[in-house]
């Protein structure tokens, strides 16, 4: 336990620190693998190892297979996320505007939100078959509701004094919404979108492992079909890295800019 509570966030380590740490981790992983093989804890093909993962990377990179899978998955995720944003925004605004509807509908939406998105897969297959639409459907279902809830609570929980001040200056209707309520809610909305994206990305993988469409999920399952544990491991790592890259590179950086502008970060 840190001595001070709340503990202050530690200083960010230098880049070579991260490099060193992860190189060390990979080295230990390789050692563990070799130790396990020599003591016959596991068969060489049953446990992933860094060298094997590297081999998989090389073989999957030939013919741009891996890159193609990443791009297909990303474009699918982006399209699904965009649709989810539209649906989420409309639904969220409806919940905000129609108090009575909101009271009855919100528990249902919260309930559906807790449903793991893989549970939508059988439903999607029955409706659309094993195809693109089914995957898209799962992505939208996975993220739209969380975005809707974020829009509703984000717009509701702004400091009322902004609205008061703006109204005494003559703001009302759409001017009040777009020039005051929306910008005031922007930090909340952004963190809602970020969460929606991460739900969507997970949902996409549940959808893709079931289908035969080109994508990371499919490549992952191909590894299983080939009983190639290194390929499975590699694709898992790629899925993590892509997820982190979008989260940090897109959402985090926008969020940080907005917060810094307001002196909140």
């Amino acid at each position: 336990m840190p001595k001070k509570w709340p503990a202050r966030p530690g200083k960010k380590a230098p880049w070579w620190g991260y490099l060193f740490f992860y190189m060390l981790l990979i080295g230990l992983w390789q050692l563990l693998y070799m130790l396990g093989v020599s003591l016959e804890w596991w068969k060489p093909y049953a446990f992933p190892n860094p060298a094997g993962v590297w081999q998989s990377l090389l073989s999957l990179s030939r013919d741009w297979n891996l890159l193609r899978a990443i791009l297909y998955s990303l474009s699918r995720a982006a399209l699904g996320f965009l649709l989810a944003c539209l649906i989420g925004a409309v639904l969220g605004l409806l919940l905000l505007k129609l108090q009575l509807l909101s009271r009855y509908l919100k528990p249902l939406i919260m309930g559906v939100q807790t449903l793991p998105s893989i549970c939508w897969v059988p439903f999607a297959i029955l409706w659309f078959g094993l195809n693109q639409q089914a995957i898209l459907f799962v992505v939208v279902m996975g993220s739209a509701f969380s975005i809707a809830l974020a829009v509703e609570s984000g717009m509701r929980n702004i400091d009322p004094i902004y609205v008061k001040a703006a109204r005494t200056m003559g703001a009302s209707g759409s001017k009040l919404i777009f020039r005051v309520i929306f910008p005031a809610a922007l930090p909340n909305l952004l963190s809602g979108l970020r969460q929606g994206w991460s739900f969507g990305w997970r949902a996409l993988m549940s959808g893709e492992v079931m289908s035969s469409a080109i994508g990371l999920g499919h490549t992952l399952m191909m590894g299983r079909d080939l009983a190639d544990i290194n390929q499975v491991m590699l694709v898992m790592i790629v899925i993590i890295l892509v997820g982190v890259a979008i989260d940090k590179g897109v959402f985090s950086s926008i969020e940080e800019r907005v917060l810094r502008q307001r002196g909140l970060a």
Partner: protein
Amino acid sequence: MLELQNLCMQFENAKHATLKNINLQIPEGSFTCIVGASGCGKSTLLNLIAGLTLPSSGSILLDGQPISGPGRDRVMMFQESALFPWLTVLENVCFGMKINNVPKAKQLEIAGHYLDMVHLSRFRDYRVHELSGGMKQRAALARALCMDSKILLMDEPFSALDKQTTNLLREELAQIWQQTKKTIILITHSVEEAVFFADRVLFLSEETANIAGEYVIDLPRPRHIESPEFIRYRQDILYQVRNEVEKIEHAEEMAG
């Protein structure tokens, strides 16, 4: 001229009325201060005048026209600046004019004038979080003045500031009022502040939910809080306000 007629306000689920039968006339160009203990309903009264809340009964007339909602002719300033953190100082000051479709060039001209008046010209491109508490209230004042409203409503605008900043801003507001001769209604819990600003001080009592005292302050401006006349006014009002409170308490004891 602002006119309050038989104004009553009782909130849902409240046992007693917050305001009962308030009748009041506030002439154009006057500086009126409303004092009272916290919870006496003075903020409610200001919100009613602003049109942010609607009265249970009675009416408020501005130049003979009934008030039915908020409007740019009654701009309000709050204890917190209520500046928008996503805009710069200049954009904040222009906000009301922009909403009301004032041409851009005119906006900048007016904003520049009032930013000068509150000594914030150098900080026009700052973000709100880069300003001190006093600077925030100055910016909020400039934003309000730019609206050229008929009435400026101020809800304890200085009570979140330290003593020194408060004194400085009081002097500045008194000067600005003398330059602009705007109708100002200012709420405060400080009798000293009320005497410093007001043509007329109204004492709002929680017990009667009405105006329990009215004092015309006939002092030349600029006023000095250390002058004997000033102190006499202040003591006088404090004494009477105390009397008023005690009288009511006494009456309640007799009744109970």
